[in-house]
């Protein structure tokens, strides 16, 4: 049985249809890179799976159960976690408090505050600092740690490297590697194609709200992904005709 099944999902922002009839499945333990240009609908798709944005059509099933109309907090309790774009930490609260909040999900497990501190050693010294005073890398680590505290079965990461220095990105990915090795199911939105292809087992490329390309990372060339990314194959075919 698939862990996550997305079936003909439609999501709108007012008049704009951001996600159009998207379908895909995720097996337990997979790592998937979701790529695409800005505005392709990646963030909206993740938010709709997490329940932060209501779908206008289609179905999302998790562990075989229909969660399409479930509010976000209940989906977290089912095991879906999203590290949102822009991190969205509670800036006035401490790192520890940000992490403790996730206990509301009611999913005890391997991830505790101490485990997060072990996975992201740069947070140890900042445990009682207000989240608003952290560096970008520390904030991202806290945001990922906060999602992990819900002990998710599916972890979705939206643009973890956005706004971080290359050094901080390396550090975040080094920590993520532990996670990847542990067998957690992960969906990753990443602008850096090289990195995405290196980490992921499977790649889904979105273009204008639709899936333009999907396949095993090992089977795809960088060029194929780039073409899907910019919609080049489509215009190329048009020019040939």
């Amino acid at each position, binding site marked *: 049985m698939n862990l996550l099944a997305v079936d003909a999902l439609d999501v709108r922002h007012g008049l704009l249809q951001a996600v159009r009839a998207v379908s895909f499945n995720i097996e337990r333990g997979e790592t998937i890179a979701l790529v695409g240009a800005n505005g392709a609908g990646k963030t909206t798709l993740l938010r709709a799976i997490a329940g932060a944005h209501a779908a206008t059509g289609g179905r999302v099933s998790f562990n075989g159960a229909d969660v399409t109309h479930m509010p976000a907090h209940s989906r977290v*309790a089912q095991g879906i976690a999203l590290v949102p774009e822009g991190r969205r930490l509670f800036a006035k609260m401490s790192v520890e408090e940000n992490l403790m909040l996730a206990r509301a*999900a009611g999913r005890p497990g391997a991830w505790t505050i101490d485990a997060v501190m072990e996975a992201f050693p740069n947070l140890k010294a900042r445990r009682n600092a207000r989240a608003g005073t952290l560096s970008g890398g520390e904030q991202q680590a806290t945001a990922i740690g906060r999602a992990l505290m819900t002990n998710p079965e599916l972890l979705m990461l939206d643009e973890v490297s956005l706004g971080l220095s290359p050094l901080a990105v390396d550090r975040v990915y080094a920590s993520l590697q532990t996670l990847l090795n542990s067998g957690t199911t992960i969906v990753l939105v990443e602008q850096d194609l090289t990195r995405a292809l290196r980490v992921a087992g499977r790649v889904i490329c979105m273009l204008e709200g639709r899936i333009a390309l999907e396949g095993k990372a090992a089977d795809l060339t960088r060029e194929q992904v780039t073409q899907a990314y910019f919609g080049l194959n489509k215009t190329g075919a048009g020019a040939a005709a």
Partner: protein
Amino acid sequence: MIWVNQIIQGVLLGGYYALIACGLSFMFSVMGIINIAHGSFAILAAFGLFLLADQWGVSPFLGLIIVVPAMAAIGWALQRAVLERSSRAGILVPILSTFGLSIVIDNLLFEFFGADTRSLAPYIGSFSYDSWSLSDDIEIGQLSALIFATAVILLGGLQLFLSRTELGRAIRATAEDADTVGLIGVNARLVNATAAAIAMATVGLAGAALAMRATFDPYAGAPQLIFAFEAAVIGGAGSLWGTLIGGIVLGVAQNIGAQINPQGFFIAGHGIFLVILFARLFWGGAGAAFLNSLRRSA
């Protein structure tokens, strides 16, 4: 000595203002809503206690066991039925809807209880006027002291609740970013309804304090809203300890004003509110720093 007494009485009165401001300030800091019907709800609670005492001889202190939970339930319902929908429609709609609600409450109270001015003082025996004498000129009313202590305990308790408990953290997080709390498993609707219930429970206490220490009538809600608002703003909206200082500043200013001119009580109160408000708006940094230093030294 008259002045010293006026200031002491002002500080004690400030305890009442802090108590009535507590719920308003709490609701504003958590949900970003200024509940215009706040004062009317305090009067509703006062009439509830009056009814219990007058009809069934229930002591007002005992009556709180019924009225405070009832007010909490009203707060829950208010959030679900009115505030939630209003705040989704924009920042102006909650003002309009709660103002409409205040008119409904005031006039329904008038319909059922008439225009008579009431007080709970007759139902609490000599406690309403018993006092400790500090000197010939200075007396501290026991009821005033109890109200002041209640305000301090309530504000302190809320502060602890917000910083130390899981629900308190969830309330603070929801206040900061109601969209994101859902992503970490917090039910924002439940949290907001709980916060509204807590705010309205404090309004129940404030209504009791008002009804015991003074008189009230169905239309007494509006001035209570204004006093609560002034105390909350003077203290820096959303800061609980600031609310206590705001209440004290307001109470002291009113008592000093009353000493100067018979009409000076209210004029001085509104005056100090406007002066502090504008000082903060125009010399924002310096004013806030001054108030922060006050808050720290308190």
